[in-house]
């Protein structure tokens, strides 16, 4: 599966919405159920799915689904 569809699926699972509703611009403002706890769960699930560790700057920088894509694609040290 493409990175993009893996991320879309993961966000859809945690927010409990149809994966077709997800696009790169989607942000917590658009989805009522996307609260701070869900936000954290998304970040944790992302780390788990792609086996990476996000720095605090990176975590704070996430404002929409597109930002998640950029995080996964950005070069980094892996464990």
């Amino acid at each position: 599966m493409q990175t993009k569809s893996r991320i879309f699926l993961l966000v859809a699972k945690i927010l409990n919405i149809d994966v077709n509703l997800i696009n790169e611009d989607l942000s917590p403002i658009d989805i009522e159920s996307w609260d701070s706890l869900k936000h954290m769960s998304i970040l944790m699930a992302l780390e788990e799915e792609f086996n990476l560790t996000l720095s605090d700057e990176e975590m704070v920088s996430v404002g929409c689904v597109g930002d998640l894509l950029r995080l996964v694609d950005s070069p980094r040290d892996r464990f």
Partner: protein
Amino acid sequence: MLFDLSLADAVMEARKIGEGKPYRILVLRQCTLEPMAPYLVTGGRDFGLEIEISFGRFDAMVQDVLEDDLWQPEPDCIMVAPLPTRYIPQVVEGAGLIAFDEQAADIETALASVEKLITKIRERSRKPVLWLGFYRPFSAPLGLSDERRGERSLESIIRRINLSIDNILRTTGPGWVIDMEGCAARVGWKQFYDRQRECIVGLPFTSTGLREISIECLKYIRNLTGGLKKVLALDCDDTLWSGLVGEIGPEEVDFGLHGFPALGHRNLQRLARCLKERGVLIVLVSKNEEANVWEVFETRKDMILRRCDIAASRINWSPKAENLISIAEELNLALDSFVFIDDQMAEIEAVRRFCPEVTCLHLSKKNLLEIDGIISSAGWFESTEITETDRTRVELYQADIRRDEMRARTLNIESFLVELSMDLEIKIDKNVDTKRASQLCQRTNQFNFTGIRYTATDIEEFIRSDDASVISLAVRDKFGPLGDVALAIITFTQERAYLDTLVLSCRAFGRYCEYVLLEKVAEISARRNIQWLVGRYVPTSKNAIIRDFWSKNGFNVEVSQENIQTATISLHNFEMFYPKIFRSIKQGE
């Protein structure tokens, strides 16, 4: 299995709507733990438990004990999640900065505050407490030299604090300290702890860490709710040893100390042997010539598992599902208490299809070396206490099989029972072995009228109370002791004696022990000038066998809308009708 479930999948699973009465966990915490909820809920479903979790406020554990709303309805279990850096900062941060003597005072203070919190919780509820234990910080403040400090090292100080907490919990009611360092060690510190997230959102663990903590907590919860398995059914070829005994002979099958996969099979044997010592029944289900298999057991001196460890076996060419059903009948245990391990996927699939109640585990080259970890994580066999009955359980069941053979030879059941020469021993209140009594509550599913699972501490409380009595019954016959097999807990009011709990181990079915126990209950109640004896029947998925017990025995039964029976009988004309088959009945001193 929770073992390899990702957070996103656990969230999905947890969202499904469950059935049945929920098991409520109240979490008092000093950190963010909400993302642990999906793991607990999903893991609980593995053994049919619908877990519901409510969280106290962030870092308000003491206040939350007093917060009435949080305790309505009463939780079934209380989880306490303190953070070492917040709860015992002097100890964690002080290490290496202040003298050891001063630190001793800090430890005292910390423990006093732990004790106060636990006392407050116990005043609020007598339900089990799971305390997430303290753990070392990522690096020791004194670096390598910390190791040299022996009992002054931070590692050993933290271990001692955890032991003291365990002690406080144990002496005040049911409760355990969750081994957080063990959880961290299993997944690795770097994968467990997240200091950065602790700073930002107050969540000190990674998703991997949260899953591991959930797995550990669920072992206790499974224990408390009676979800334990009792039987491990093993295939032989390529499971207990590497190679096919029918082809290469008993000398050539391999389970040696060296090399793969032999060592893996050896580990599995060791695991089975340990489980047997813990009271799990080991049975063999193998497609083989029976003589070949036993030849391995008898001629290979290096076998870890011995023939006497095997409670029952079906070594033939019949389908394994059929064999498992027949073993379940022989041992008088339900199929859902079985775990079946086989290296052949086809066998696993067939058992899954025809005995869906059996939990199956496919042994592959990939997981062979991990098998002990998998079985431990699944929590199938994780008892919190090991009793004398556990250690001798296999002998008990082997004697059962000899009894069955005798029954087949004897013409009618009563003369068979007389021939057994049964001696009963009735134990009342302080003579009752509370650990075994609690085990009877936890493990008995079929002959269990109310399905209430009491811990040893609960039972001690009944014993101490003036308005309650606990009676247990031990049986011995010519084939050996069966141990404590029946338990009754009665609570008294002025006019009525209520049978809060009445359980009979499946080993003692059909021996009329329950009647002796009821007679004793009646006798004790009558001595208090009580007029009525009241029993109940709360239907569960497994106790249909005793649905008509009350009505058949002259009780006046009323059935509620939820199908709960309340059965009443006057103690004036109380008499139990059963054949007089016991050699002796005495009361223990």
